[in-house]
């Protein structure tokens, strides 16, 4: 040990030199841009500290954008989580043939990555004014979808579209958790005289809720940050946060750069909180999957 003592300092320097490229990259292209925007949200145009921008977020059109964004994200996350959970339970516990399981999982891998502009095109071709489903409903069933007030460029339409990548994501994350339910647990429960309902309520739900709730938050954040699908689907006709921010970056439509930073800050806060809780819950959930 004594011989390496003088080397310690040099060793420490090489240690830090080895990590320097990554540190430089992370600071320049991840941390600094975020810190710049976040701090900008607390400054006025003259560089003085202010909370004005955050208060201004509550003006009607920005508040409305946040509310509709939160509504769409929550609806598509909850819908995606429920349907995704049912599908995951079916392939994991439903004693279906093995090929169904692997087909569903492979398809989910593809569909969870099929987002952005192409997804918008697919739904326009399905439920748009000339979409296949719209036409079949009209010509075969005599049901005019658009006469009921349905519009793909609306809350319902966007929610339905987002679920196309939300459901598969839920399936992919929850299936391993469901597979982790040990057979012995259900056997032990039934030996002890538990009804299936008691088994679910007292064993399965306490074990699974961190995965399910965590994934729900991940889906929420996922939908909240989705820009491309929304822009391609609605142009800029729907007032949701990513579209407001997109327009603000393009041409300062809010006429106040610092207010733009505040909109970005609000987005980071919402996706940040949901993702932090997701990561934390996921660590809890992994205890049962060893």
């Amino acid at each position, binding site marked *: 040990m004594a011989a390496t003592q003088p080397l310690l300092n040099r060793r420490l320097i090489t240690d830090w030199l080895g*990590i320097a490229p*990554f540190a430089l990259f992370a600071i320049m292209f991840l941390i600094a*841009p975020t810190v710049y925007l976040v701090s900008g949200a607390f400054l006025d145009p003259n560089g003085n500290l202010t909370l004005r921008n955050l208060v201004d977020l509550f003006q009607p059109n920005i508040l409305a954008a946040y509310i509709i964004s939160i509504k769409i994200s929550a609806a598509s996350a909850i819908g995606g989580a429920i349907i995704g959970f049912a599908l995951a339970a079916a392939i994991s516990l*439903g004693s279906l043939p093995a090929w169904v399981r692997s087909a569903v999982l492979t398809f989910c*891998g593809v569909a969870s990555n099929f987002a952005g502009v192409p997804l918008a095109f697919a739904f326009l071709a399905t439920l748009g004014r000339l*979409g296949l489903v719209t036409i079949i409903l009209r010509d075969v069933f005599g049901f005019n979808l658009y006469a009921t007030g349905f519009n793909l460029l609306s809350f319902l339409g966007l929610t339905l579209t987002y679920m196309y990548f939300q459901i598969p994501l839920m399936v992919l994350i929850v299936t391993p958790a469901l597979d982790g339910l040990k057979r012995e647990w259900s056997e032990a429960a039934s030996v002890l005289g538990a009804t299936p309902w008691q088994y679910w309520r007292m064993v399965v739900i306490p074990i699974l809720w961190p995965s399910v709730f965590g994934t729900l938050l991940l889906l929420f954040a996922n939908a909240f*940050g989705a820009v491309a699908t929304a822009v391609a689907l609605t142009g800029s006709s729907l007032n949701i946060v990513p579209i407001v921010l997109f327009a603000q970056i393009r041409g300062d439509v809010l006429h106040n750069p610092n207010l*733009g930073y505040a909109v970005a800050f609000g987005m980071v806060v919402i996706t940040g909180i949901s993702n932090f809780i997701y990561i934390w819950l996921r660590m809890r959930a992994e205890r049962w999957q060893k």
Partner: protein
Amino acid sequence: MIGKRFWSWLAVFVAAVYFIVPLLATMEFSMRMRRGTYSFDAYRSVFADQRFAETFSYSVVMALITIAIGALLIVPTAYWVRLRMPYLRPVVEFVTLLPLVVPAIVIIFGYLRLYNSSSWLPLTNTDMGANALLVFGFMTMSLPYMYRAVDTAMRTIDVAVLTEAAESLGARWPTILFRCIFPNVLTGVLSGAFITFAIAVGEYTMPSLLNRPAFGPYLALIGANKAYEPPALAMIAFAMTWVSIILINITTRLQKGAAGAR
């Protein structure tokens, strides 16, 4: 038991309808271009458009550069952290998860403010600078996936033993890294690479705000101006996603096989 199986089939069936109908509808719509009959005219028109090839190859090149630089940055970092600075692992892991917390649109907003024409490093002034920003943006977006894939692959090898063995045979650092560590984590790099590729090629927000002639903004432009080409492009994109997922599955299976053989 029969009840359980019935509900399972029902769930799979309902999901299958929801997922397959849009694909059928997209396919049908994309073949409507010629009046009164189905044809592949829309696909012909897509491939005949010169901008399709230009923007697509631009995006592919950017994705490949992202993968190369990303691998060169992340493999040595993950290796170094495991070997010499294990106490930094939580910090590095936290940083690599940050892009999940900060949406891509916010990151690119920050770039445009920090590196615009009146800043200390005016990257947006030149095409090369903007391309570099795009590559760094893609790297940031793929960081959580790339780092995880490489780190998982590194878990299956003992970096300390490999390093000592190489050192005692007289190898220098570049040899250790490129002839010893890289080949051993290649499956991790590959699966990270396919995810990066899938993210980068279709990405809309970043290239569009940086005004780059990439595939994502081209898709949006076609969507705004044409009727039958967009669904054809959606089908092509779906097929490409399918291919990359199959490649990811193959590489992860190889990785598991390699881990199991040890």
